[in-house]
């Protein structure tokens, strides 16, 4: 057991403690709250706002679509189709990273295949403010692995909706709408929220896809940390990157605490 705890302490404990410590130090090592002040104002605050907004878009949209898609798959009669989609979601949910970014550049970049097709029918996404290299482009790419992830997370919950509940409701004269309003949605809600919180965390912390797509010019917190680590810092702000890291840790910790809370509720109904 000891090697495990030593390993975790060295590989996880020390870096985290060091990060929190450095966030409150000047470059010379004196205690300060200046870094915290800097990251809660101006361009760094914008970074947090953008990151949180991006994570919200990339958790709410795939979250809702994922539930409906998973329900459609779950209730479909085709056994092979169901198994195929389950395997595909498992694989696609792991398709993040730089490879996906380049596939999307080939598809939706300025000269991408889909862009060319859309141009042929006189729809130019780039003249409507869309670009794969900016904010909404990044969100479009995130959807690609977030949607299958949501489907993976929510399918067990859908399987936990017992047919008996539906039969009981209709025996008592409830319409389909009333069944969903009073039984289905309340039972599923904690699982749906839990899934969305997971998606939020994964989109908020993602670095590779956004970095490869935008080349580090977009104001997102992980990208700003990356720029800081690459040495692009103003004198006197050397330790601001650590404060950014601390801010991300705080957001992620809150997300995970909320996740723990809704999971406890979700497990009440779904065993």
């Amino acid at each position: 057991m000891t090697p495990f705890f030593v390993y975790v302490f060295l590989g996880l404990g020390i870096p985290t403690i060091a990060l929190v410590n450095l966030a409150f130090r000047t470059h010379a090592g004196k205690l300060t709250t200046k870094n915290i002040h800097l990251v809660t104002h101006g361009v760094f605050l914008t970074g947090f706002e953008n990151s949180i907004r991006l994570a919200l878009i990339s958790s709410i949209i795939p979250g809702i679509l994922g539930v409906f898609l998973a329900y459609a798959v779950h209730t479909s009669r085709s056994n092979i189709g169901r198994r195929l989609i389950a395997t595909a979601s498992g694989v696609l949910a792991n398709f993040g990273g730089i490879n996906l970014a380049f596939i999307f550049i080939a598809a939706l970049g300025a000269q991408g295949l889909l862009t060319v097709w859309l141009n042929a029918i006189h729809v130019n996404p780039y003249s409507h403010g869309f670009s794969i290299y900016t904010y909404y482009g990044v969100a479009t790419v995130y959807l690609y692995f977030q949607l299958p992830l949501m489907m993976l997370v929510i399918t067990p919950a859908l399987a936990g909706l017992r047919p008996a509940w539906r039969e009981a409701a209709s025996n008592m004269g409830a319409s389909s709408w009333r069944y969903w309003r009073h039984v289905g949605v309340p039972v599923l809600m904690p699982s749906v929220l839990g899934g969305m919180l997971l998606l939020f965390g994964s989109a908020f912390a993602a670095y590779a896809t956004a970095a490869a797509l935008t080349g580090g010019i977009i104001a997102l917190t992980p990208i700003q940390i990356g720029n800081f680590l690459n040495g692009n810092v103003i004198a006197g702000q050397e330790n601001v990157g650590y404060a950014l890291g601390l801010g991300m840790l705080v957001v992620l910790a809150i997300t995970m605490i909320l996740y723990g809370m809704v999971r406890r509720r979700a497990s009440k109904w779904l065993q």
Partner: protein
Amino acid sequence: MLLAGAYFLLPLYAGLKFALQNDAGHFSFFAVKAIPSAQGFSAAFTLSMKLALVTVVLAMLLMVPTTIYVHLRLPRVRRIVEFITILPIVIPPIILIEGVLGSYPGWIKSSPYLLSFLYVVLAMPFVYRSLDAGLGAIDLKTLVEASRSLGGSWAQTLRRVILPNLRPALLSAMVLTLALVLGEYTMASLDLWETVPVWIVNFQQSDGHITVAASMIGLIGTWVLLTLIVSLDRSQSRRSRRKAGTT
């Protein structure tokens, strides 16, 4: 449904088409063939392979004994170990590498194997869960007691009894770790080591077709590795069902 299908398939089609095209837009395998001889690729590939090997060995050496020990002797620490192995999901790679670069001494930071050391941490959630499920599917205690009472040493018990029974779980843990190492970009790029993913990004200025071809191969590789795990999981659940049927 149809729209979702199109959304998932069209980018793959576009990637494939672009990867199998030359600059004039004709069908060609030139980009795929050009990857091995492309500037910097072989060095990046060698580095990625070395890191993958070291990471997989290190992860198994650390996590297999730990998980077995938790199952056999310390069920009470199970919750703590479970909690710790989830932490790398809460503390993302970008934060971890920032803390590491800010705190580790220079002589450690100058070695590429620092990445292997950290990848073991990143892989922990998957490795632990996979091994935990594998150990849960066999009757570990009975097997160990039988082997020990027949005079087997701990090493023999591990090598001849536990590991063969754990083969599907071990394999899937190794494959997951491998997939993680081969696709990891954040830590490698910020630690300034040119692994294959970092090479792909750095090379994009030189030739778009080669970049997309390499990405496509990466995605297909991920697909193959992960499908392998799914089939391993199936064979394991068949085995545990069989076991449940006979007892």
